[in-house]
């Protein structure tokens, strides 16, 4: 499954480690929330980066204390109809100030890229090769946004107010 970061397909440095299997001595790992919470300190002490796969029905409160020591948080879209992780993403970014990698996993298709990016995701495990290849193109689909989110894009309202301001300043 191709990983898209900073707009293009890239090598995934993280190894998905299944529950019950042995951890590699070093290198970046992605573990489940159960495994992580069983002994977070031990995992975070390891040489190598740690990431957690956080399910979309689990409260973020359990994760928040560790955010500044995690290299990635992977949120899950079991199907693309299930939009719970969009709320989790915004909360991690906008409320809890998480600024590490935020990865979308599961059924990730081209048609969610804009929504996901706006919600705060910056890494995407894309289901189809063709969708991954079309990432940069797809992100150009929209230039107007109505809602303020933490992604810093100006909203339509911001732009209208700026325009009014410059018009009245020019008078």
């Amino acid at each position: 499954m191709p990983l898209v970061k900073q707009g293009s397909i890239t090598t995934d440095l993280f190894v998905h480690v299944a529950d019950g299997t042995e951890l590699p001595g070093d290198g970046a790992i992605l573990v489940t929330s159960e495994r992580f919470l069983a002994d977070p300190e031990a995992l975070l002490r390891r040489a190598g980066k740690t990431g957690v796969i956080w399910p979309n029905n689990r409260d973020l409160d359990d994760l928040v204390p560790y955010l500044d020591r995690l290299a990635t948080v992977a949120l899950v879209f079991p199907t693309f109809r299930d939009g719970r992780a969009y709320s989790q993403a915004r909360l991690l970014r906008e409320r809890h100030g998480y600024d590490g990698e935020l990865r979308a996993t599961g059924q990730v298709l081209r048609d969610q890229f804009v929504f996901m990016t706006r919600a705060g995701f910056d890494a995407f495990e894309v289901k189809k090769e063709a969708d991954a290849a079309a990432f940069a193109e797809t992100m150009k689909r929209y230039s107007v946004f109505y809602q303020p989110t933490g992604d810093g894009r100006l909203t339509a309202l911001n732009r209208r107010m700026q325009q009014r301001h410059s018009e009245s300043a020019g008078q």
Partner: protein
Amino acid sequence: MYAYDELDRTLINERVSEFRDQVKRRLSGELTEDEFKLLRLQNGVYLQLHAYMFRVAIPYGTLSSKQLRRLAHVARRYDRGYGHFTTRQNIQFNWIKLAELPDALADLAEVGIHAMQTSGNNMRNVTSDQWAGVAPGEIEDPRIWSELIRQHTTLHPEFSFLPRKFKIAITASEHDRAAIKIHDIGLRLHRNADGETGFEVLVGGGLGRTPFIAKTIKPFVNGRDVLSYIEAILRVYNQYGRRDNIYKARIKILVHELGIEKFAREVDEEWKQMGDTELRLDRAAIEEVRSRFSYPLYEKLPHMPDELKQAAHDPLFERWRRNSVAPHKVQGYSIVTLSLKPVGGPPGDATAEQMDAVADLADKYSFGEIRVGHEQNLALPHVAKRDLPALFKALDRLGLATPNVNLVTDIIACPGLDYCSLANARSIPIAQELTRRFANHDTAGLIGRLHINISGCINACGHHHVGHIGILGVEKNGEEFYQITIGGRADENAQMGTLIGPAVPYAEVADVVEDIVEAYLALRDRPEELFVDTVKRLGVEPFKERVYATR
């Protein structure tokens, strides 16, 4: 009218391009039908019994004549020459071809019309009072707020994949014409003791197989905070709404399972956590949207012009005027409802020719503006009283002056088994038969206000629960049967109707309705006592006896 600016136009054009790409990928096989299904539903495209059905949004029920002409063009060019106005201020085209859809959307986008979120599990078209901005006694024009919410909910990055669909309706009048109590969120604009404008927020209303009347979650939310409060409700719902069972996924079930107090606490907690957000609307932001609504330059006109006095001698005109013409906030003007319920016709349908003609009449008599109401009728919102006689003649020629607004033949009906793949039974032929039974408009006038609502299945698109008489099609051993309820209503006193007894077969529905109406005429206290009030006073028993005594 709200005038789109460059940003609004750009956004809907970008949406058209995106959808064009999605259709292309489907036609090339790059997208599976299952993947495409959700994408097409985000843009109003259903697969029905015979063809794709295309639902177009008419936000808060306001159309310009130019927009209506474009809808007529779509009906003619891409469909079979007609469209169907729905109970949520949308119009549906029933025979559209998938490959032509992007072009139809592009044609609509040129006049600022879109189909975004008219289906799918997202925030649907925001609806409002079809008399917004012209009804006497209104707090203020609710379309300002409707438009703010329309923008906020359009392509929302967090709430486009909700557990289930989500509908918001707004009213600013004491008499609720927007049916806010049967919406996921209902907003009632009012002023608090300090004179500030804000909303009573209701939540968890809805029909379908588990109907609920919405409950008040907050008696007053200041207008400037309405977006953040809605966002708090949506965030709680997105995370905790059920996704395991489609029939339990609406917010009404979450509110019911948690109880309104606990649900309200969850929302308040979330709202508090959101703190001071960019969603707060300062005065300038509200004014920005308000400034893009244009209002007619009304003339100073007499309350009772000569034209009206003369026409009063024409009994047909008078009957129509008393039925279809309502007071306007400006002296000398009226609001005129155009009945889309002709005797023998399918409720809510309009031909391309009718749409074009109404657009012309709007230009001539209503400052180019048309409204669409949830009762599936149209309205011309600013007609000078002196023009009423001429307008009546023109509407009569078009078959749009049936004097049955709010009467027994002003029936709300879903498309039913004639079109819909979900239906168990036909709706339209039942409605047509009823309009023939009560074809005498004078008799209908004597009966008075009586809303009949028909749904062809439990999903309740015809709002049968809240009809004064509700008719629900069910299937029994391969045959169409109909359950009859009475006493429902969708206004500020909204409540569900009560079942009067066992379902009756297709052929008997009209007889049963006639029996109920006859029972009412015999039972009512005085001619002014409305059907719903008689049912409220006496309960369903006397009606039940009348209907089932001989069956």
